């Protein structure tokens, strides 16, 4: 029903002299137009810049004691000092680098595993699909955070371990999402037509299926960055993070262990958590608006609090 109204509208605007509209569903097309996407992208780029520039911004050892414990914010130390008397600003900048590093790397690991499993299961179907999907279901059901904590506790606390552990655990949602998309694309008529032409599986996957699935994979990977940064804060909060490294999660842990609350040192507590929230929020907004744009199902609803308007007919004759 509503499709026919859109259909009606779309057909009416079709006609031969159609402006060369940009291809719908391409990421550039969405990223530069959706306000939420722009906001999300802006936040992420800001933090990525800080991460890249951190070796220049922070020269010495950020953990070095430069003043009294929990020194309040002052001109020279705008965000005051932490439980060890170190400058919060430098700690935060150093933390950005690690958190983003973990976030992006773990997200790439998950996206790679999840993407491959999703494409293989979705495209080949049959036994491969059943086997791969059963394993995904097992991973999906097993609680991810406790598994991560246990794995971190067992395998040691180096940064690479943390990245691999987070990456290996979060691929399940990506796998299911990509598999569903590949399944739907594989059934599309234009893939069947290409197959009828004699195109082999390789060509079908790389020429027809992956280009259609890629934008969704990108959108999902961005969401994975958010999950990964989150997971890192859990692990380091429980003291399982890499001791030699400063990350936002570590800073929150320090604030908690050094009883920042009793000293009412809000400047040691709020900033690290705020950074995590902003980056995760930015990634979620950007990823979510991409996914919304790529998923055409959300049509104009029939119900809305707003009503259709009634306009008095301008004079009977000048109807056009």
């Amino acid at each position, binding site marked *: *029903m*509503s499709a026919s109204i859109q259909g009606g509208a779309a057909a009416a605007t079709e006609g031969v002299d159609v402006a060369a509209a940009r291809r719908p569903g391409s990421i550039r097309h969405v990223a530069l137009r959706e306000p939420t996407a722009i906001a999300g992208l802006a936040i992420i780029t800001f933090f990525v810049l800080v991460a890249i520039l951190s070796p220049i911004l922070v020269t010495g050892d950020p953990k070095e004691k430069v003043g009294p414990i929990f020194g309040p914010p002052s001109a020279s130390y705008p965000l005051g000092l932490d439980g060890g008397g170190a400058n919060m600003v430098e700690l935060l900048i150093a933390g950005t680098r690690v958190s983003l590093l973990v976030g992006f790397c773990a997200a790439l690991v998950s996206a790679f595993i999840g993407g491959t499993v999703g494409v293989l299961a979705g495209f080949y179907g049959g036994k491969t699909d059943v086997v791969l999907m059963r394993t995904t*279901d*097992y991973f*999906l*059901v*097993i*609680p*991810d*955070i*406790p*598994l*991560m*904590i*246990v*794995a971190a*506790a*067992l*395998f040691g606390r180096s940064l690479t371990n943390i990245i691999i552990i987070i990456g290996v655990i979060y691929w399940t949602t990506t796998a299911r999402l990509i598999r569903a998309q590949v399944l739907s694309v594989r059934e599309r008529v234009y893939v069947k037509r290409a197959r009828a032409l004699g195109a082999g599986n390789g060509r079908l996957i790389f020429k027809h299926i992956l280009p259609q699935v890629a934008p969704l994979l990108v959108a999902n990977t961005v969401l994975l960055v*958010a999950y990964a940064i*989150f997971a890192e*804060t*859990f692990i380091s*909060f*429980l*003291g*399982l993070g890499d001791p030699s490294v400063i990350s936002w*999660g570590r800073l*929150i842990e320090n*604030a*908690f262990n050094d009883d920042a*609350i009793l000293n009412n040192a*809000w400047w040691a*507590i*709020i900033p*690290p*958590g705020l950074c*995590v*929230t*902003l980056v*995760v*929020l930015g990634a*979620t*907004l950007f990823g*979510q608006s991409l996914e*919304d744009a790529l998923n055409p*199902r*959300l*049509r*104009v*609803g*029939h*119900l*809305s*609090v707003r009503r259709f308007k009634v306009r008095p007919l301008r004079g009977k004759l000048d109807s056009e």
Partner: protein
Amino acid sequence: MRGFDYVGKRVLFAALTVFVAITLNFVLFRTLSGDAVSALRCRQCTQAFKEYQREQLGLDKSKWEQYQLYLEDLAHGNLGKSLRSEQPVGHELWPPLKNTVAMVALGTFFSIVFGVLVGVVCAWRRGTWADKGGLWSGLAFYSMPPQWLGLLMVLFVAGWFGLPTAGIKDPTLGILGDASWWEVFVDRLRHMILPALTLGLVLYGEYALVVRSAMLETLGEDYVLTARAKGLSNWRTVRTHGLRNALLPIVTLVALSLGFIIGGSITIEYVFSYPGIGLEVVEAIDQRDYPILQGAFLLLTLAVIGANLLADLLYFKLDPRVSG
């Protein structure tokens, strides 16, 4: 019989998953950690004491025998003994499990109520400031690390409402005379509010998002136009047709996010030193108390598998189209 096929498959799948979880649990703890005892952080342990411990935990037998022994113990509900307190793990973990379940239930209740409310309003007033505001606040809370939110709660909220910020029981209670069950209950509740609220706030964003998109999709369906054509008012259409279809995805989402909920509750219990299974896990990590860690992990996994089975069965009951 329509349902038998579907239920059968789901129960079979759940059973298989439990078996895999048990095996994974065994592999994780007994084999990969090499020799649990050697990792024991007791400096003054003599070689003899370590030997005794290995004996105790049956680590000297072959992996396969250990696995069979492990399965037998499990069958009798014996999860081994805590290295720290020498008490049986099952006995150690039971009270904290009850606390966690109560707190998580209250937290999930908060998140579902907030989530559905915000989700429906955002879908209903799509595109208006209410929609944007609701979504952004939901996403903001969803993006906050639970432990950090907990700290903020303690810093700002606790003071306002005079809510306790640690433990499960008011130490002064029961000293003056044994407190009635009602006083104990209220005290328990007051101790649970902050952790549960923290958990609720962190989760409601995701639920709001899912309810919103499910609502939007439902509002685009033709049967909503039919309902309007029948003369139903907007609100009645949402109530009878929109809500039910929109809540379907919530059922699976709650089950699927249980893993995340339990994860979140671990850090929240740590911040509020709320004596739940989360706190047990944290302490077990510090003291390298593997049996406790293994037991806790197993219980959590079984809880999630159980929740997923429940969600599948509930979904099957709610949606007649599912025929398995």
